[in-house]
């Protein structure tokens, strides 16, 4: 018989400790913790602890607005083709991390893995759909105007500026993508208050954005309690528009709308209870944060 060395018996393998991800905010292309140092526990749909998420403060919101404003000039000046490609790139990177997002959504929303996977599919598809709008929206909503005189007169859509978004509270990924994509594909930059109870898909999405050629500051994601932060953003004089899609409390929505009147922010206030993120989104969200600029010039020799 052949001698065989006696192999050392395998010691019981110590179970490997996970490296957990610290959940941070996403501001100006970086991942800071809340300046307040606060966090809150995020649980899955059955109440099991998932992670501590940063709890953004009004100062984080302020910093996010500064970052969004700073990014606006460059982002809005990019060609529509370029913006479309960047949004398409988000879809590509999201697709590449499909299993991770499916798992995130499954945990956050308490869905079956199949249903969660379908939501990731839908989110990718929505990004692709909006990406294509970048260089078409001006042709659909712009015009040349046949004025009664010797003038060339045209109207073009331009981004409103910095858009504050209270993201849907239930639909943690598809809802989020559905409100962010139309705002930024037209050249706006945004400050997003994510779902309070389901922030982890948003945090993962931040990582996708950070690796998708989206310039820092174009999308800023704040986890935390929108009811705490949103009033500061609603009254912020350097924010041009506010999307209240994630506000289901009608009194809060009204209060935010009142605050938003301080500088006449453009307001998107659909009934949060009736939002169906699987439905055909239409162009309403694209045009909600567009200004029409009309330019006149004489025609002569």
């Amino acid at each position, binding site marked *: 018989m052949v001698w065989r060395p006696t192999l050392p018996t395998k010691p019981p393998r110590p179970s490997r400790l996970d490296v957990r991800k610290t959940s941070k905010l996403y501001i100006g292309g970086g991942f800071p913790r809340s300046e307040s140092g606060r966090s809150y526990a995020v649980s899955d749909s059955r109440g099991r602890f998932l992670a501590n998420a940063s709890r953004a403060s009004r100062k984080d919101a302020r910093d996010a607005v500064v970052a969004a404003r700073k990014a606006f000039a460059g982002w809005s000046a990019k060609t529509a083709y370029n913006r479309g490609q960047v949004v398409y790139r988000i879809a590509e990177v999201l697709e590449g991390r499909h299993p991770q997002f499916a798992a995130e959504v499954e945990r956050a929303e308490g869905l079956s893995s199949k249903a969660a996977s379908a939501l990731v599919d839908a989110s990718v598809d929505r990004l692709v759909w909006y990406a294509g709008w970048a260089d078409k929206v001006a042709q659909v909503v712009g015009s040349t105007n046949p004025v009664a*005189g*010797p*003038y060339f007169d045209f109207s073009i859509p331009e981004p409103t500026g910095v858009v504050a978004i209270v993201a849907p509270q239930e639909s943690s990924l598809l809802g989020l993508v559905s409100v962010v994509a139309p705002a930024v594909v037209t050249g706006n930059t945004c400050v997003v208050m994510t779902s309070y109870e389901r922030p982890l898909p948003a945090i993962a999405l931040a990582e996708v954005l950070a690796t998708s050629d989206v310039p820092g500051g174009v999308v800023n994601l704040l986890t935390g309690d929108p009811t705490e932060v949103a009033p500061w953003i609603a009254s912020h004089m350097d924010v041009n528009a506010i999307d209240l899609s994630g506000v289901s409390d009608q009194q809060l929505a009204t209060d935010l709308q009142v605050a938003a009147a301080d500088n006449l922010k453009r307001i998107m206030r659909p009934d949060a209870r009736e939002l169906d993120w699987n439905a055909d989104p239409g162009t309403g969200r694209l045009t909600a944060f567009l200004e029409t600029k009309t330019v006149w010039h*004489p*025609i*002569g*020799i």
Partner: protein
Amino acid sequence: MTSSLLKTPFSADGASPTDAVSSPAALRRFLHGLPGVDQVGCEARVATLSSRSIKTTSKSLALDLAISMIDLTTLEGQDTAGKVRALCAKAKRPDPEDPTCPRVAAICVYPDMVATARAALGESGVHVASVATAFPAGRSTLAIKLADTRDAVAAGAHEIDMVIDRGAFLSGDYQRVFDEIGAVKEACGEAHLKVILETGELVTYDNVRRASWLCMLAGADFIKTSTGKVQPAATPPVTLIMLEAVRDFRESSGRQVGVKAAGGISTAKDAIKYLVMVNETLGDDWLDPDWFRFGASRLLNDLLMQRTKLTTGRYGGPDYYTLD
């Protein structure tokens, strides 16, 4: 003459009018450095001015002023001494029945009719203007243009209406146009030189502005819109640009140049619109036959008819006004 305008950059490189004529290149730079004219804006301004409502006493004043500014013109191949003498009679006393009616400024004829006109006008004070320089096309040699001019002056013309070489202008040879005007000016001697731009052939308002400056720099006493032989002849926008040019030229050089709108002005209403333009662009200094003229033949009768309407209160008819 004040003012801050003297310093202003009429040309892109800040050249003054004196520098402008130092070389062909400088002349070109200067003319192309003049501010552009926006056609639509210019015509809009004219439309607003045209909406002025000139009534009663101001109308009466305007009609008489317009009559006194007319260069009563006949420039036809069929002109005869008889025709010219008849016109001269009308020039001296446009309305034989009304001695308060002013005489016109001048008679405008071809060079061969100058002597006839001078004789017919005598000491009436009505000037004789002669077209010259191979009018209206100007397509001849400089020698012939100068001879043409000298002939007219020798025959007694007080004023010479020359044409510029539009071909040279449009081909960018500004120096040639400049030199030719200078030579004709010299040939004029004491006679006043009106330089015809023939704006209908220059086409763009930018060209009209450049040509106006070119003529003034070259020594024109008057700049004149048209020969009357090319359509369009005088138009209000073209005239407005020329009025602006003489205004700005006086600001920068100190020299006042007159403007003559010629061709196509046939009604009192039109004439009054031109006077309103002069009034609101240049003011009193140009509201004088020495500084603004109408080159016209039919205009006079309509002015007379409107004048009579103002005094009698009833509308007249053409049968009551002489056709000369």
